[in-house]
């Protein structure tokens, strides 16, 4: 029995290692029904930009709010405000900044850095 137990533990360790290898590397879980909140950060950024553009085209604030709530249910305007400020600070595309500021304004989430972009057409 003293010899069997170490072998069983060794087998267990090898099995666990094999299971992790299969489960994480060789055959990982592939999610196919994800939500925008689970997108990679660069895609989340694109998503916010596109929601702002869609608001500019359709003028549907509720639709924009609902889409943004998929990213941040508590504060839907936060992704817009943060991205607008980032792009303003980094000198991003003028069109992107204006559409974001336009939406931020509609959502009551403007900040001082957005002031130069308020009131214009994207």
């Amino acid at each position: 029995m003293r010899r069997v137990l170490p072998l069983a533990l060794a087998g267990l360790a090898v099995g666990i290692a094999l299971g992790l290898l299969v489960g994480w590397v060789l055959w990982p879980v592939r999610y196919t029904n994800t939500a925008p909140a689970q997108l990679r950060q660069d895609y989340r950024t694109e998503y916010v930009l596109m929601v702002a553009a869609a608001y500019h085209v359709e003028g549907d604030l509720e639709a924009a709010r609902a889409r943004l709530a998929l990213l941040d249910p508590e504060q839907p305007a936060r992704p817009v405000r943060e991205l607008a400020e980032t792009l303003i600070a980094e000198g991003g595309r003028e069109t992107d900044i204006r559409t974001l500021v336009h939406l931020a304004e509609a959502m009551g989430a403007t900040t001082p850095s957005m002031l130069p972009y308020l009131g214009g057409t994207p």
Partner: protein
Amino acid sequence: MNHRAGFLAFAGGAVLGLVLGLIYAWLIDPVDLYNTTPDLLRSDYRHDWIRLVAMAYLVDGDLERAEHRLEGLPQEDVQAALAALIESYAVEGRPAEVMRPLSQLASRLGVRTAAMAIYLNTPPPSPTLETTPTPQPSPTPPPPTPTATPTPFISPLPPLLPYRVISQTQVCTTTLPQLQVLVRAAPEEEGDEPTPLPGVVLWLTWPGGADRAVTGLRPEIDPGYADFTLEPGVPYALSVDEPAAPLLSDLTVQPCQEGNLMGSWRIVIEIGQPPTTENEEGEQ
């Protein structure tokens, strides 16, 4: 015997470990769920992503960016979502400034819908219109049709417009006066039949009002058919796409010669340059 027991212990432990490892890797701590890509989005979110790409393209006009945003998405999803967006926008009567670039994006991505055809074939209104190939061997522009009613209802068309009124006929079969419009594409070759065009936005305007209809919503009559109800005594103007440039103006309900009916008007509009000039006679 000891050797066999040791092997069984090792194998049993390994199997148990494998099961535990898979449970941990698949269920307890699966591979990063927070770095997914748009192609893994749930179907409704994926379609919304595609709609958003199209709307963003309308704002920035950056085709390369739009295509990059659509990378990895199944082509059939992209095409279905864009076709649905275009059709819904056409029904909503979105202006040509929206429909034209949207149709161009969709066309580039392999989408073909009836509503797109009109915007892909229509040059944008700009001074470059003079480059439109206008010279036709036909000696006379197609005069819109004469009806038995002497009043000149059809205003002359600007020669560069792709829409032409082919005929205007009074119809005395309905009790409520209507404007019945048939829109069709000109045949590409002489002898071919014109093709009915669904998805074309028509505007009926009158002093103090406007109404909009889209062809193809009553395919049992004709795929290129749409109608409006007319009020007697009101001068109407009919436009295609946008209410700004009427094809017909001063269109009013006229009494039929027989009976007590107020006549309806049936208008046939053709889009595109015909191989030969073709006129239909009005009848009453």
